[in-house]
């Protein structure tokens, strides 16, 4: 099983959700993060003073999927989240040893 840790633009959430649903992936966990990267921040001016806003608001979407569909999920996310501009984000793929569904105690693929 893999954890896909996707850093995307806030505006991509809806599309990513739909793309994953289309693949049958029905769960995900989202958090608000701030990103720093090639996409430069911007300057805001408050009473003449320049403030460097280095970090850009991003969403981190975490999805755990079975090996079987990991590839397809990555492609789907990639497609859904791309605008072609710097700052579209990354997908980090991490190995997952085990998944437990708290409610039932189920484990492994069936717990996802």
């Amino acid at each position, binding site marked *: 099983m893999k954890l896909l840790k996707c850093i995307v633009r806030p505006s991509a959430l809806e599309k990513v959700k739909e793309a994953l649903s289309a693949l049958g992936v029905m769960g995900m966990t989202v958090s608000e993060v701030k990103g720093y990267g090639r996409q430069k921040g911007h300057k805001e001016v408050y*009473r003449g*003073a320049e403030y460097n806003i280095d970090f850009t608001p991003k969403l981190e979407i975490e999805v755990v999927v079975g090996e079987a569909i990991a590839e397809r999920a990555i492609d789907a996310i990639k497609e859904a989240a791309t605008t072609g501009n710097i700052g579209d984000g990354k997908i980090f793929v991490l190995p997952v040893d085990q998944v437990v569904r708290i409610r039932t105690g189920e484990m492994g693929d069936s717990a996802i």
Partner: protein
Amino acid sequence: MHGSPDPVTTGHRSRSRFRRALVMLGLAAWLIPGAAHADGLDSGDTAWMLTSTVLVLFMTIPGLALFYGGLVRAKNVLSVLMQCFALTSMVTLIWILWGYSLAFDTTGMEAGVLNLSSFVGGLEKALLRGVGIDALVGTIPETVFVTFQLTFAIITPALIAGAFAERMKFSAMMLFMAIWSTLVYAPICHMAWGGDGAFFWDKGVLDFAGGTVVHINAGIAALVAAILLGKRRGYPETLIPPHSLVLTVVGASMLWVGWFGFNAGSALAANGTAGMAMLVTQVATAAAAFAWMLVEWVKHGKPSVLGIVTGAVAGLVAITPASGSVGPMGAIAIGLISGCVCFLGATSLKHKLGYDDSLDAFGVHGVGGIVGALLTGVFAGESLGGQGLAEGMTIGSQLAAQFVGVLVTVVYGAVMSYIILKLVDGFIGLRVAEDEEDRGLDISLHNEQGYYSEV
């Protein structure tokens, strides 16, 4: 003083003499022939002054508290609210115990005579001695006058707090302000509004609603405090934007609406002077806000809401001394000029000189106050649509008088603020420890958090 039974000048009855006096000094005019018998009370004037008092208190809590509170980082928001609230409480007690007396006791004063009483009142009215239910000032109860003036005494130190936000000890702040209210605010207030024999008054300085007494006074103390306390940690390398401009805009809006109590209330009556003060206040504020917005639009490419609200406050400050003396067209001019000059004060001056006036207490109130005080001398002239200069004055001599008022306030205020701050520093220290500053004053000084999100 307030015991004299001469009802002649009360209310709108003797309109022209009344106007004359108001043009000179606003509040002070009323102090002279106040009648103490109930018949002189005008319920309409009293109604407006009760309301004005409410409005000016509203300016400090929650108005200024929000205006300032939104501009700091979230970890310091409560410390700012606390300063405003605690000052409101402490200054109230000081005022009724001795402050009002030092400011408005007129014992020993005589027109044209320069003596100690020209600079500070005595203690005849300490503990509000003699301020009974029937005492009047002009056409309103003296109790209302005391409370109205109190709200000015409250907001002035609260304005200063903008300069040292995010780094001053609460205890040091309270101690400094207790002394400052007594030794700086009360005397300057007395010189300006003490009536015949008072220093500024006898010089013919025009300060209808507190340009010198409140704004220059606060602004200069703010500058001294900002310099003495030093910069916030990390300033100016790592600037942190205001944590909630929403609060700041709300606070600015409350300042705007409350300021009608400040300026139109300074007529001490519900009459034509109050009406004109309200109108010119609205006009100058709008003009200054508009000017700041345009300058910023041109200079930075985009108009900002922090810009426009700061401009509005600048306009409010600048029209304050002038609000009993100028007409609507003069108000436009004062607004446009103060908007542009304060823009420079808050954006360039500070960065050039390198002090850290956290929330621009000097840049807006000091600079705007000085601009307003001087322009009052210009636009009060009848030729420029104003209500007329002080008696026997030309625009030149009036400007000179205004200049004296500004200078004395700046010099006296700066020297005294410096001395008091140094004393307090030696006694208990002015500034919080570094790690307290890093954690934020809310936790460090008050053991509270402004916003708590359940995890």
